[in-house]
């Protein structure tokens, strides 16, 4: 099944470069381009992509706002944030707004493609250490006030935050993959999260997973 992608970036050379790289993959098809947040919203409506590659810094409607708007559509696509710098606070802003992951524009073609596939499948968290570092910079954890998680769900959430996929979590906890899937679904439901990345961002902002600096 092909992944239908919309590329939103205000710099045409970056946009075209990303398009060339993604189009060279047999299972990815770029269905549209947008040069700012407003156009990204319009193009998402028109082409109904599976995934939007969203530049965080765009004129007028920036990537954070555009992510919010796109995700508010019925049957929204997933959003992959593309950024020049990992130390850009806008990235965490976009993740908070519900983006499913981020990737650096300077990443190799293989990394870019892998990021698109990972976000489209929704089965793993991209660059867990970088996400934690961003949260560490941006967040003063509040108290979680939602439905309480079970001990097992807490554990699973912690491993998701470490970037483990379902299979790896199952192995770590010596349970079946199906059980893990149930726990993850429970966590997402209780946190009101759209996917794993969103759940991890919520976990950091609400103090469900302690924020410690990653080892250098």
């Amino acid at each position, binding site marked *: 099944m092909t992944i239908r992608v919309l590329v939103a970036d205000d*710099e045409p*050379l*970056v946009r*075209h*470069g*990303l398009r*060339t*790289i993604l189009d*060279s993959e047999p299972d990815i098809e770029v269905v549209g381009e947008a040069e700012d947040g407003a156009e990204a919203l319009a193009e998402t409506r028109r082409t109904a992509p599976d995934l939007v590659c969203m530049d965080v*810094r765009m004129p007028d409607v920036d990537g954070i706002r555009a992510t919010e708007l796109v995700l508010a559509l019925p049957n929204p696509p997933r959003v992959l944030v593309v950024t*020049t*710098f*990992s*130390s*850009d*606070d806008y990235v965490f802003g976009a993740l908070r707004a519900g983006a499913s992951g981020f990737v*650096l*524009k*300077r990443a*190799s*073609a293989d990394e*870019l493609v892998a990021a698109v596939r990972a976000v489209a499948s929704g089965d793993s968290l991209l660059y867990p250490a970088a996400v934690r570092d961003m949260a560490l*910079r941006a967040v003063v954890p509040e108290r979680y006030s939602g439905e309480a998680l079970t001990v097992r769900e807490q554990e699973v959430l912690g491993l998701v935050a470490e970037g483990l996929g379902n299979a790896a979590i199952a192995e770590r906890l010596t349970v079946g993959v199906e059980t893990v899937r149930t726990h993850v679904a429970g966590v997402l439901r209780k946190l009101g999260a759209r996917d794993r990345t969103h759940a991890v961002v919520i976990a950091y902002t609400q103090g469900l997973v302690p924020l410690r600096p990653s080892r250098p």
Partner: protein
Amino acid sequence: MSGRASRVSRRTAWLLLGAAIGVAAVLLAGSLAAALGEVMPVPGPVLFVVCLLPVALIGVVPGVRGLEVQSAKSMLDVHGDLVDPEHPGPDHRRRSAGWVVLHLAMGLVAAALLFGVLPGAAVTAYSGIAGIDLSVGGVSVPTRPAPGRPVLLVATAVVAAALSLLGTAGIGVLASRWAPAFLGPTAADRLLMAEARLARESEHRRLARELHDGIGHSLTIISVQAAAARRTVGGDEPGLDAPLEAIQTTAQSALSELDGMLGLLRDEPAGRHPEPDLRQVEELIGLHRRSGMRVTADLAGLADPPALASRTAYRIVSEALTNAQRHGGDGDVEVRVDGTAGLVRIDVWNPTRSAVGPTSRGGHGLDGVRERVRLFGGTAASGPDASGRWHLRATFPTGAP
């Protein structure tokens, strides 16, 4: 050990410097007083003030404060912030004058100890040991002392000598303790420093943004285009892939360096934990509520004043709530902040615990509030209102367009 010895000797030198100028000042003042006394009878206290004035005026002479700051740093080992402002205000002048008076006075006392008491002690001891009659100022020491007298004389001399040395060292220590109070930054200086730091921070941010928009932008295009070129033609043309890869990795590593630099710029301690301002007032109130205080807040007029005014306002609310926490009685604390039309108005009411009200210890905090507000050309007052609650009101212009 030698470090301590050199510290003591540097302080003593500083004191003697004060003594030298002090002696000159005393001579001048003495002749002035004598001349004045011949013209008309002047009461002692008035004479004292007349003599003190020229000394205090030395402190106001341009350059003297700079000298005092330098000598305090190099001779008294004061390592804290000492300031020599380009445009000294009345507060600076007052403190400089006070410091010069203190410097000379301490110098004279030290000189009296070292050149009066110490030689006196030596002579006394010598007379005790040698049994020689010494007449000092009409007081004669007996030629043939009674048994036991030499011991007493020598002991007295040793004690006096020790006291004069210790006293001198002690005065030196006091001088280095007190220097920051007179030569350190005033509250206004601290505000200026905060302003300068703020300007520096925004300069850093501007630089970061320029790096992002300029170099980062171009390098990103190079990196992405090289990656795209490798995807389309690199595989078919083996000779082309290596140079394209070199272009890509070079752009990538330059971008990582920029990335790190941006992180450093932003992670500066001051930038990372900016002082809270009015935007965090609600958070602050929440904090007090969680600690059990009942607070009603009207923040409807919470506009967004300039950074420094906003921080000042936050501090005032924070001070008021802390005071209410410490001294207030049971009942609701009411907070009202209005920040419209270039004016910040803060009202805080809290119930008092006793009829006396929060006067004794709360005063310190209120002094701080008053001082801050005055710097903006505003006013602050507090006291019981008609209903018996404690009412703090601070009003000040935001001081910016």
